[in-house]
């Protein structure tokens, strides 16, 4: 059981505030912006950022949606265990809006590829940006890079990065787990 802590609660707190500020720099009052949490694990991060933007920077009326990409994945029928779909909740047309995808870990880039296809069913966004908490370097299968990143890490293929949120785990933390405790 090898579990290494990559980020602790305090570090995550600082990073989240930085990411929120970077978003404000580019999106001002968010009137033309839609934040999209990628199901299932990007939702917590998206909720946290929205909370910071609302409570500490008094930005009101932030459009937040949830996007499930299960039906858009390129590994349907190619996995050993089927994936369970989550809820998609986007109550607005994204036409001509600035969309920001929010996910916890960027690894192969395939989830984001699926999300790029999925979001098209809600219209044609003006542009799409990507925000991730952890960017796993040198592991991409596709030409996809984040616009905002919390922390960049080099992790070998057999290892996994796991982001824990206190909403479902006991505390906020980012761990690196090696292959024997997947």
């Amino acid at each position: 059981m090898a579990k290494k802590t990559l980020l602790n609660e305090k570090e995550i707190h600082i990073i989240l505030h930085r990411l929120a500020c970077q978003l404000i720099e580019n999106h001002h009052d968010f009137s033309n912006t839609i934040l999209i949490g990628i199901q299932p694990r990007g939702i917590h991060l998206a909720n946290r950022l929205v909370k910071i933007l609302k409570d500490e920077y008094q930005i009101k009326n932030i459009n937040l949606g949830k996007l499930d990409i299960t039906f858009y994945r390129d590994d349907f029928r190619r996995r050993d265990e089927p994936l369970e779909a989550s809820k998609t909740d986007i109550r607005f047309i994204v036409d001509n809006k600035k969309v920001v995808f929010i996910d916890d870990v960027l690894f192969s880039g395939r989830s984001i590829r699926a999300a790029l296809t999925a979001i098209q069913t809600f219209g044609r966004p003006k542009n799409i940006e990507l925000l991730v908490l952890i960017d796993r370097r040198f592991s991409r299968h596709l030409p996809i890079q984040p616009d905002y990143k919390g922390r960049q890490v080099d992790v070998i293929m057999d290892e996994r990065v796991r982001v824990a949120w206190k909403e479902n785990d006991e505390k906020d933390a980012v761990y690196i787990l090696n292959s024997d405790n997947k």
Partner: protein
Amino acid sequence: MTKLSVNNLLGIKHLKIKDIDLIFKTADHFKEVINRPIKKVPSLRDITIANLFFENSTRTRLSFELAEKRLSADIINFSASQSSVKKGESLIDTVNNILSMKVDIIVLRHPNEGAGDFLSKHITAKIINAGDGAHEHPTQALLDSYSIREKLGTVMGKKVVIIGDILHSRVALSNIYALQLQGAEVKICGPTTLIPKFITKLGVEYENNLKKALEWCDVANVLRVQHERMDIKYFPTVREYVQLFGINKDLLNAIDKDIIIMHPGPINRGVEITSDVADSKQSIILNQVENGVAIRMAIIYLLAEQIKR
């Protein structure tokens, strides 16, 4: 659970409650998909589906076709009336010829009971039963239960009466299995001549009096009188049927609760149900049709998941 326990959908009889839960949960997601501006997902883009209809159908065929297209599957349609079946080709030969065109899933509607079961023993493609004779029509029963669940929150503990021509109905049998599996109470109501002899062995009660049946139930699923399947006269006149078993507004007003009215279609307006009831707020007939697409998408998706290359 994320996998179905069956390899084909031949009847509700083979399903477990977990399968129904999984199908409903998946259908919830697809219902959201089909209400988007662009109602399509690419999941099944390398799957080919053949819709083999050896018997006429409008609603079911359209619903399946739409479900398949919304999942991005390639589809071929076949209807017996315009085919070599008329020239004397056997079912297995017809299907094997179609399968050699590399088809992964077959949707089968057939006038003979057990056609899907029989075929499943001879071919490897997935089979979805879209109605076999007077036996089962599983997708209809699933969309019926799904519509009840949507309207009432749950099927468990609800009282459902199935009214009309039970004898010639595949919808009735599949509905009885599906409702009982989910913990609903089921009664049947209709002319004695249109009630199968041993139906009460399934644990359903027979009620001859329509008003009493309606007073008892939360949901009334009204079936069509299937004139085309009746080789002899099962009741004296349509007028008498309407008087004894037709549902009209006066009858519903005489009951002190709002029951839900369902009908699998096509409706004989003025026979088993009057227009003012079919178009009333109590009726969820059009919701059933919408849910049919979502339910069929879920079933096709979950069966396709099992196809590995």
